[in-house]
């Protein structure tokens, strides 16, 4: 694989891109968007050509929730099998970000040291991207109401993802437990294989909301039989998970936190197995079980992606900060952390980065916080959060609109009985997180990216 032909043969374009990238970095910016924009304008064929030259093709991962972490899991699973992976891990998930990633990895001579690209793209960008670069693999995790002020309706978002599936050439891997994605079974992608990942029956009640499940079952009832899942999440409990793969159950400890990340791992396993089997063209049982064991071992090492959630320790007090940006994500986050014996703060902002509509807070059930209560609500929409908690009969002790002042109050929280510092749980929207993170980082004794 060392002597590969060139991915791109116009050194001028590459030099231009690299120069702009270097200049952008000198100016101190992260510098991912602008160089990509310049190259895409000057040479629109750059990205399609370079990506088209990858021997194992392009993978698109899209969803409402879990894109970043799942992209990271898939990347690390493929790397464990010695594939050289190009990924847009900067979180800049549109074409410009993809081009920036390419520019960093391509030589002036036009050689690219990668076998496959694994790209996280949001629903709208995924369609635009696929029209220019048809993905060989597409992984669709979920469709939940999110950013309705941008996408309009969840049905529209679902349609975008089905369009991406229909442009995929190799294989589409989708969530069998998502009623919007299950519709793919009735209108399968014309070129690609259609595979599923799913939940074992005993887990479906925990994961899927009652109403959602009834609707899902009503939708599936139209199909002839229950769809077969290539990988099923069979059990999960805090720090370990079991997966049902090729008829056997594999159990592993996980570094990843949160039950929903265990489900994202099932998705990543299904995708990775398909990529490897299309590359190797072998489907022997013996080979399979050996491979599965290796993948599970690699999975155990994967840590969560940066930015979704972080842990800090401040004067001996553990602090967990979790990003919440829509009802589905907030529900899953609440299910993943035990609120008893810890003090909770919720920070809701309504800037563009957060979404200006906060109505979705009423689609989250906060009753699990009823007993411990919520120490503080904060952010521009702190009162909406207080109102929301009121209707769920969750006691809320303080409303402080300024997030940093609220954080200072939170850090003095003491257990009412023992007087000892309590573990702290912070749920916050995007711009609130960017405000809180620097303060937490400077005060922390130790910092660890976790979720």
């Amino acid at each position, binding site marked *: 694989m060392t002597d590969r032909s060139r991915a791109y043969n116009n050194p001028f374009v590459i030099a231009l891109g690299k120069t702009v990238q270097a200049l952008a970095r000198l100016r101190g910016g992260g510098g991912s968007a602008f160089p990509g924009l310049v190259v895409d304008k000057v040479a629109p064929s750059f990205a399609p050509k370079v990506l088209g030259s990858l021997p194992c093709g392009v993978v698109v991962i899209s969803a409402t929730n879990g894109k970043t972490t799942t992209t990271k899991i898939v990347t690390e699973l493929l790397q464990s099998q010695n594939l050289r992976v190009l990924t847009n891990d900067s979180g800049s998930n549109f074409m410009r970000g993809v081009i920036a990633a390419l520019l960093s990895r391509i030589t002036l001579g036009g050689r690219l040291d990668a076998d496959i690209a694994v790209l996280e793209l949001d629903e709208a960008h995924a369609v635009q991207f696929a029209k220019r670069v048809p993905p060989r693999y597409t992984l669709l995790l979920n469709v939940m*109401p999110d950013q309705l002020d941008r996408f309009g309706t969840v049905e529209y978002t679902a349609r975008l993802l089905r369009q991406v599936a229909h442009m995929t050439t190799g294989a589409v891997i989708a969530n069998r437990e998502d009623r919007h994605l299950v519709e793919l079974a009735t209108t399968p992608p014309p070129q690609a294989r259609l595979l599923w990942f799913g939940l074992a029956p005993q887990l479906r009640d925990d994961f899927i909301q009652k109403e959602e499940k009834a609707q899902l079952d009503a939708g599936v009832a139209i199909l002839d039989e229950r769809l077969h899942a290539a990988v099923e999440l069979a059990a999960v409990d805090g720090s370990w998970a079991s997966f049902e793969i090729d008829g056997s159950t594999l159990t592993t400890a996980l570094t990843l936190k949160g039950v929903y990340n265990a489900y994202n791992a099932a998705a990543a396993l299904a995708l990775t197995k398909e990529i490897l089997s299309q590359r190797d063209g072998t489907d022997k049982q013996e080979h399979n079980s050996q491979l599965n064991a290796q993948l599970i071992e690699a999975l155990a090492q994967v840590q969560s992606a940066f930015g979704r959630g972080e842990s800090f320790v401040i004067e001996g007090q553990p602090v967990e900060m979790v990003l919440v940006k829509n009802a589905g994500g907030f529900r899953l986050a609440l299910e993943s952390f035990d609120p008893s014996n810890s003090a909770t703060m919720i920070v809701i902002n309504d800037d563009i980065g957060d979404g200006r*509509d906060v*109505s979705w*807070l*009423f*689609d989250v059930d906060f009753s699990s916080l009823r007993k411990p209560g919520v120490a503080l609500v904060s952010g521009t929409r702190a*009162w909406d959060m207080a*109102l929301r908690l009121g*209707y769920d009969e969750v006691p809320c002790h303080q409303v402080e609109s300024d997030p940093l002042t609220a954080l200072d109050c939170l850090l003095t929280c003491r257990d009412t009985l023992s007087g000892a510092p309590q573990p702290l749980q912070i749920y916050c929207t995007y711009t609130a997180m960017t405000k809180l993170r620097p303060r937490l980082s400077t005060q922390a004794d130790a910092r660890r990216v976790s979720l």
Partner: protein
Amino acid sequence: MITQANQAHTAAFPALTLVQLYPWEMSVNGDAGNLQTLQRRLQWRSIPSKLVRLHPGDPFPSQADLIVGGGGQITSNSPVTSDLLRIKEPLREAIESGVPALVTGGSYQLFGNYLQTIDNRQIEGAAIFNLHTQDNTQRLTGNVIAQSEQFGVIVGFENHSGRTWLGAGINPLARVTQGGGNNNEDKTEGARYHNAVGSYLFGPLLPLNPGIADFLIVKALEHCLGEPFDPQELTALPAIDACAAQAAAIVQKRSWNIN
């Protein structure tokens, strides 16, 4: 409709029957909060209530004291569109006889005469509200402030592509001072007809504007009792309503439009 005039009052209040129209199909973006607000405000005042969830194909309940319908995408082939026509007679009878209702978003549109889609197809509504809606490629999205004769200042968040035009015999819920409202032209927002309220506002509407919730509750009690009910007799809920007032004040300060 069954009248409740001669029902024996064993408790301080009779049990109200709340009917939620199409809970699966017509409930988006916090709409669940409208129903929860009604239920909690009843529960906190020790007014018993039960909820009937009406799914496509279900018979229209023989008793209905308060009807709630939320938002959702309306297409000509959705089960809701045809099912609503099936129950439109008893539904209309209920509204005409004074049963209070809150319909938001898609349900609000379907209570009208028709919805004209972008590709010029006409989807028939229940024709309870004399209004029609023309779909538009541009969505109206953003915080809304509106002034209502009956309820004072109303706030919420709009996010809809339909342009709704009120006909004769139906009043707007409020007049917008900020935001697009019904159609981005005539400054009206929502509709009022007998004891029914239609609106495009999310937020959700009722938690942010508890005056509307209590109006619906009073009218539901009157319907159930068959006699006038003095709103002053409703227990005040000062703590939660103070939260709502603070939240509504913030919406007014942060009231740009996205478009």
